[in-house]
C-alpha cells in the first residue's frame, strides 16, 4: 500500500468533508431549532450553484467574488420560504412541514428546469478552476482547497454567532423550548425566520464554493441533501459543532472506506457508520 495514496485519501476526504459540513450546518440549524426537516435544502444548494454559474456566464463575475451576493440571495430565499411556506404549517404535524418543503423542492427544481433547461454546466475558466498544488506526489486542487478553507471559516463564524451573539442566545433558547422562549419575550417567529435565512445562507455559501469544481444542473442538490440528513443526525440535531465534525467524518469514511472496501459501498459505509454510532449513542455523536 502506497503511503501517498493513503495520504491523498485523507486529504481528499477532508476537502470534501468540509463542504459536507457547511451544507449540514445549514440543515442542522433549521432542523434543530424548528424541528423541521427541510426537504428543499438540496434545491437551495442548486439555486446557489446556478446563481453563481449564471453570474459567471452572463456577467463574467468569478464565483469567488459573487459569493457574498449568493449568500445574501440565499438568505433572502430562506426568509421568503419561511414566510410563504413554513409559517402557515408551524404547530401542525411535523410531516406536513416535510410535505410542504417536498412540494417546494419539486417546484423549485422544475421552475429552474423550465427557465434554464436540463443541461449540465461546468465552470472551467474561473480564477481557481483547473489549478492545483502538488508536493511529494500529493495533489490538492485549488478550487477544493479554497472551498474547504472557506467552509471551515464560515462554519466557525456561524458557530461564534450562535454561541456568542444575542440572537444566538435567543435561537438556542427557542431550540430548547419554544413556549418558554415565547414567555421570556423572545419573538420566536422572528428567530425562526432568521434561522431559516441563516440555514439557507450556509448552504448558499457551500453552493458558491462547490460550483468551482462541480457540475450544475437542476437535480444536483439531491445527493448532497441526502448525505447531509445523515450527517446532521450523526452529529446530533441542532448541534453545529456536531454537524461540522460529522461532515468531516463522513468525508473521510466515504473516501478511505470507499477505497478499501469498494467504491460502490462508500455511501453504504456512511449509513452503517451512522447505524453503529446511533446504537451506541442514541442522540448522535454530540447530541444533547
Amino acid at each position, binding site marked *: 500500500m502506497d503511503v501517498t495514496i493513503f495520504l491523498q485519501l485523507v486529504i481528499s476526504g477532508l476537502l470534501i468533508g468540509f463542504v459536507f459540513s457547511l451544507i449540514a450546518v445549514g440543515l442542522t440549524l433549521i432542523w434543530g431549532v424548528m424541528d423541521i426537516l427541510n426537504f428543499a435544502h438540496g434545491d437551495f444548494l442548486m439555486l446557489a450553484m446556478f446563481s453563481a454559474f449564471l453570474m459567471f456566464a452572463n456577467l463574467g463575475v468569478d464565483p469567488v467574488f459573487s459569493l457574498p451576493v449568493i449568500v445574501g440571495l440565499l438568505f433572502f430565499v430562506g426568509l421568503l420560504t419561511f414566510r410563504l411556506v413554513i409559517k402557515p404549517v408551524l404547530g401542525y404535524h411535523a*410531516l406536513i412541514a416535510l410535505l410542504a418543503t417536498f412540494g417546494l423542492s*419539486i417546484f423549485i427544481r422544475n421552475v429552474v428546469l423550465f427557465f434554464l433547461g436540463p443541461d449540465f454546466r461546468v465552470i472551467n475558466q474561473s480564477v481557481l478552476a483547473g489549478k492545483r498544488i502538488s508536493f511529494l506526489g500529493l495533489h490538492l486542487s485549488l478550487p477544493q482547497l479554497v472551498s474547504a478553507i472557506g467552509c471551515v471559516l464560515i462554519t466557525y463564524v456561524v458557530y461564534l454567532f450562535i454561541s456568542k451573539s444575542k440572537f444566538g442566545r435567543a435561537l438556542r433558547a427557542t431550540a430548547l423550548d419554544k413556549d418558554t422562549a415565547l414567555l421570556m419575550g423572545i419573538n420566536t417567529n422572528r428567530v425562526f425566520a432568521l434561522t431559516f435565512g441563516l440555514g439557507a445562507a450556509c448552504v448558499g455559501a457551500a453552493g458558491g464554493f462547490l460550483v468551482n469544481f462541480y457540475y450544475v444542473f437542476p437535480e444536483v442538490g439531491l445527493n448532497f441533501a441526502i448525505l447531509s440528513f*445523515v450527517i446532521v443526525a450523526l452529529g446530533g440535531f441542532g448541534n453545529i459543532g456536531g454537524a461540522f465534525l460529522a461532515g468531516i467524518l463522513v468525508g473521510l469514511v466515504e473516501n478511505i472506506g470507499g477505497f478499501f472496501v469498494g467504491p460502490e459501498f462508500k455511501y453504504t459505509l456512511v449509513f452503517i457508520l451512522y447505524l453503529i454510532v446511533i446504537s451506541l449513542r442514541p442522540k448522535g455523536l454530540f447530541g444533547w
Partner: protein
Amino acid sequence: MQNDKNFYIIFSIILIFMAVAPLVIQNTHFQHLLIMLLLFATLSQAWNLIGGYAGQVSFGHAVFFGIGSYAAMAPLTHWGLTPWVGMLIGGVVAIIVALIIGVPVFRLKGHYFAISTFAVAEVVRELFTNWEWVDGPIGLDAPVLEQGFYNLMFYKNKLPYLYIVLVFFFIMMLLTFRMERTRMGYYFRAIKQRPEAAQAMGVHISKYKQYALMMSAFFTAICGALYGLYILHIEPATVLSLDISIKIVLITALGGTGALWGPLLGSIILIPLQEYSRIWLGGTGKGIDLILLGALIVLICIYEPRGIVGLLKRFNFQKGKN
C-alpha cells in the same frame, strides 16, 4: 354506533365504485390509475399503522416493500414458484426483519428514528444491488408464464390485477378500522401522544411499537409483491429506493396521518394529480407538470395543514352550522 354505520356505508360505496367503474370505462390506462391508486392507498395505510397511529415516522419502508417484491419475484423467476407463496414468504421475512430492526431502533426518538430507518433501507438496497442471485442492479424480469391466477399474470386484461389489489385494500381498511376500536388501537395512539403516560397506564411501549411495525411490514411486503407482479420488472433502484419510502409518507401526510381515511384520500389526490398532470402537461421536457404538482402540494399544506381529512372535517363542520 353511528360512526361505525357511517364507515360501512362509505366503505361499501367506495368498494362498489372501484369494482364497477373499470367495467363501465374500458380504458386500460384508467384501470392502471385505479390499480396504482388502490395499491398506494393500501401501502400508505400499512405505513399509517406505525407512522400515523403509533407515531413512529419511518423513512425506510422501501425495505419491506423491496423484500416483498423480491420474495415474490425471485422464486417465480428461478423456480416458477407461484407468487402467492412468494408473497407469503415476503410477508414473513418482512416481519422477521421488522423484529430485527425494531429492537435497536425503537430506543431512538423522533428524527433519529426516521433517519435510522432510512439508513437501514439504504444498506439493504446496497445488499440487493450486490446479490448475484437476484441479478444485482439489473433486477428481475418476470418470466413469460401461462396467464392465470396461479401465476398471478394477466396479459390481455388489467381487471384481475385491479380486483386482487381491491381485495387487499379491503382487508387493509377493514383491519385498520377494527384495530382503531381495539385496545391496541388506543395504545398506539397513546404511545404517539404521551409515551410516558401510556407506560404509567400499563402499556408495554416497545412491544406495541413492535406490533405496529410488524403489521405494517407485513402488509407493505404484500403490496411490494403485488407491485412487482404488476410491473413485471423490479430492480433495487426502484423497489428499494428512497422515492418509494417518501412517496408512502407523503401520501399519508397529504391525506391525514393517523386518520382512517387519510391514506385513501391522499392517494385519490396525489396519484391522479401525478398521472394526469404528466399526461396533459408532460412530454415537453420543461417540467410544467411538476411545477404545478409541486405548487399544489405546497398550497394544500398551507391551506389545510391537517391534511385532506382536516379539510373535509372543516367542510362538514361549517355545513353543520349553517
